[in-house]
């Protein structure tokens, strides 16, 4: 049996215990900022990056309070503090992390680092605090499921649809690592697959040229998909999946393109091409959230932002807008939102009775001009 990506990167076989000294530790105001309540020392402060990257600019006085708290936390222990850079994960993946490196964060979307030969783990705040205190993370190396990627996506589908199709077919990947193998994928496609792969519980994910295959993801068979709502954040990994046709006949009030999987320049280019010659439907609110400040600048330079503005979209600040209790894009009672964000739990985008479903860029843009 050949060595899997995770075994190679951690230097231990599946089932063995690996003791890791990470290269980077990321704390954000998303949820991992809770670590400041547990940390009393820092073994390797130079590795810790604290980022204010969620719901920018602050949507409530509480958000501003958190800014102050994590800023003081960073200063106290000598961590690097950054803001106004966009989503921390994407910033790290695109601009900082190198192949072979190990990243520890507080989000399961840390699988993104596996798209380029690194590895990321999302862990709880209490465990993350121990990593910060000791510069050490222990885990039992998970077994890997190898997924051969074949075919090309049909029209009107995107890589989010492919990832949702894969997750729908594998609703419980707890204690597994996922390896996507081969396929004609762009670097961004690989990031989307890897960052979404842990949405049903996988430990982390990778893309690799070659590897041992246990299952197949045939892109040619992908249809527009939705991740449906769930009751609360604790049940997010168990939220159901459905084809987009499931909501046929229902009015969609809003769409949001953003995040690691929908706010990259590659996604924005796709969306901009799709709106060419189209008109934003009255009573449909479209929000565009570039993932990072680099994506924002590129979209500005390429005329993409101007195209969105003239289409009638609202452009949010670069950053993570996947959970917005109050702030741009918040949803009202009984409304339906399609988002490229990964959260669909009740209340994640405003009112508890607003319905939030994850969809692809392609599905959201089609909905914006009334094709869905």
């Amino acid at each position: 049996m050949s060595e899997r990506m995770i075994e190679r990167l951690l230097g231990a076989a599946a089932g063995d215990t690996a003791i890791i000294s990470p290269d980077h530790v990321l704390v954000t105001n998303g949820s991992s900022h809770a670590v400041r309540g547990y940390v009393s020392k820092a073994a390797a402060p130079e590795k810790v990056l604290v980022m204010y990257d969620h719901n920018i600019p602050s949507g409530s006085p509480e958000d501003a309070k958190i800014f102050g708290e994590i800023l003081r936390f960073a200063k106290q222990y000598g961590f690097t503090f950054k803001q106004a850079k966009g989503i921390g994960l994407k910033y790290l993946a695109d601009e900082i992390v190198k192949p072979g490196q190990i990243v520890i964060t507080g989000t399961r979307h840390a699988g993104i680092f596996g798209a380029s030969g690194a590895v990321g783990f999302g862990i709880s705040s209490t465990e993350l605090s121990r990593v910060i205190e000791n510069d050490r993370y222990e885990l039992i190396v998970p077994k890997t499921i190898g997924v051969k990627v074949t075919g090309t996506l049909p029209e009107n589908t995107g890589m989010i649809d492919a990832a949702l199709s894969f997750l729908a077919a594998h609703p419980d990947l707890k204690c597994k690592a996922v390896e996507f193998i081969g396929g004609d994928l762009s670097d961004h496609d690989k990031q989307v697959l890897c960052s979404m792969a842990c949405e049903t519980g996988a430990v982390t994910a990778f893309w690799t040229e070659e590897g041992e295959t246990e299952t197949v993801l045939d892109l040619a068979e992908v249809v527009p998909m939705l991740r449906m709502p769930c009751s609360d954040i604790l049940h997010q990994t168990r939220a159901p999946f459905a084809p987009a046709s499931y909501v046929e006949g229902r009015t969609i009030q809003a769409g949001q393109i953003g995040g690691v999987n929908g706010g990259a320049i590659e996604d924005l280019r796709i969306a901009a091409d799709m709106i060419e010659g189209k008109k934003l439907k009255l009573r449909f609110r479209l929000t565009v959230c570039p993932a990072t400040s680099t994506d924002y600048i590129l979209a500005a330079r390429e005329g993409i932002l101007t195209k969105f503005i003239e289409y009638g979209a609202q452009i949010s600040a670069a950053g993570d807008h996947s959970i917005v209790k109050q702030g741009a894009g918040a949803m009202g009672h009984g409304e339906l939102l399609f988002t490229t964000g990964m959260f669909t739990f009740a209340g994640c985008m405003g009112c508890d009775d607003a319905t939030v479903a994850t969809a692809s860029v392609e599905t959201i843009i089609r909905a914006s001009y009334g094709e869905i």
Partner: protein
Amino acid sequence: MEKEFKGKIWKFGDDIDTDTIIPGKRGTIPTIEEMKKYAFELLKPEFGSTVQPGDILVAGSNFGCGSSREQAATVLSGNGVRCIIAKSFARIFFRNAFNSGIILITCDGIQDACEGGDIVTVRVGESVSVNGKTFPIGQIPENLLAIVEHGGLIEDTKMRMAQGLSHDWNPELDDAARRKNGYTLVEKILKKNAGVDHVVPGDIVITHPDMFMIHDIYTPYLKDTLEKMGAKKIDDPDKVTIIFDHCMPTAVAHNDYVHYDAGIDIAEKFGIEKLHIGEGICHTIMHEKRYAKPGEIATATDSHTTTYGGAGCFCSGIGTAEMAAALITGELWFKVPDAIKIVLNGHLQNGLMSKDVILKILGDIKADGGQYKSLEFTGPAAHEMSMNERFTVANMALEAGAKCGLFEADEKTAEYYEMPLSEIDWIRIDNDAKYEKVLVYNLDELEPQLSCPQGVDNVHPISEIIGTKMDEVYIGSCTNGSIEDMKAAADILRGKHVPEDLRVVVVPATNYVFEESIRLGYIEDFIKAGCVISHPCCGLCCGMPYGLMYDDERILLTANRNFIGRQGTKKTLSYLSSPKVAAATALTGYVTDPRTLG
């Protein structure tokens, strides 16, 4: 209507602003029934739960200053407040209160003779008595008493509709009549529209505004009021603009979508085609799209409607019920105001902007210094100002309580509106016009100004504030979100970086400004400098969630208001300045004089 009645007193001080009556963050709650419990929540949190029908407020001067929000009056009428006695009232609140069925009485003296909980006896048009002391009061105009007697403007309008609406209006004055000398700017514009040869301050004129603007904060209430009035059509849909800027992008989950839907419902029902959804701030769009023109009358459901006075347009804010009535009838009454002439000599020096000029004036004449008046700007420095600089000054004239802030029309006005100067050059100040007072400023001597916590008129020269630590800087708003403002800030921030512990938010005023800022590279400059960009909207200026602050944090804004609680909690400290001061401060994190930058 009872001409004599009694009530229990709730006592307040001076300058009770609309944010204090009902905080901006509560302003988008869709129903008054739900909203009214938050009346005075920051100042007297017990008010909403303990006020009784028939209670009477006694206050100092300038009660109801600030926003045009009609809810400041309707939450009081909704709570049963019958009458307010104060030394003076802000203009828009005055109209809104009577339109809501509340009697306002001006009285200077009772404030020192009573305490909260005392019982006051009111004899309308005669006197008020408390604790054995009696104070004479003036008559209330019959048209206002009639509105109260009819149960408020809604019922009053229904009666007018039932009697049949007439378009038997005076024709506008011709060019020769407009050029008759001896009048202030506001007199000239009002008499032109009303079609009367002569007016003096205090006259009531019936105008037929050339443009009505509604923004999304008030769309649910306007829709509801139009329905209550039984409106099947409005006078002229082509004279109406609806702009979604306070609640768009939708940000307050429980409320904003209601405002969005209501705005579209109104547009569809009444055939209003000038619909701007999420394209930026209403006041900037109004002159950008040339909806508000020199020499014309525009009105809107917002206090900063005074903005277009920068182009010599008479424009003043009104409440929702009054807007509904005016949309139906096409008419709006105004009392001709006294005027103050403000002569601007000298030149704006490097590092100075027109914001510094209006802040200096506000600091001098205070928040009620222009109450019910027209502030009229002239002098070489006024004419040197660009149109955007003039709009900034006119925008903030409201903060002195002014009914309007007007500039003369000149070559720059004509060029901006692409119209011959000969059509509008009658909008000039006559030497023989009668002004209540004349203020003269030499801009050569002006230093950058800051409005400090917590009141717009708490103005200090930058030398007194220099070095104050800031937690956030916000560059935007209808006051200072223009392309010139973006350039001023970008020129300072280009190639540099803000401190990591400082949040800097930039919000272009409109989509036009946004697109131009992208094209000219300003947006890239801002982002590279460490700023975040939000989509054009009213944003934090009106307290929406675009950079809200926590207790004891300090923010410097280029906006127009720093009322308590507006930009965060009631302990947040807000400062106002020009974009140059804001950008210089963004570079250091401390209040910084732009003149000291290399």
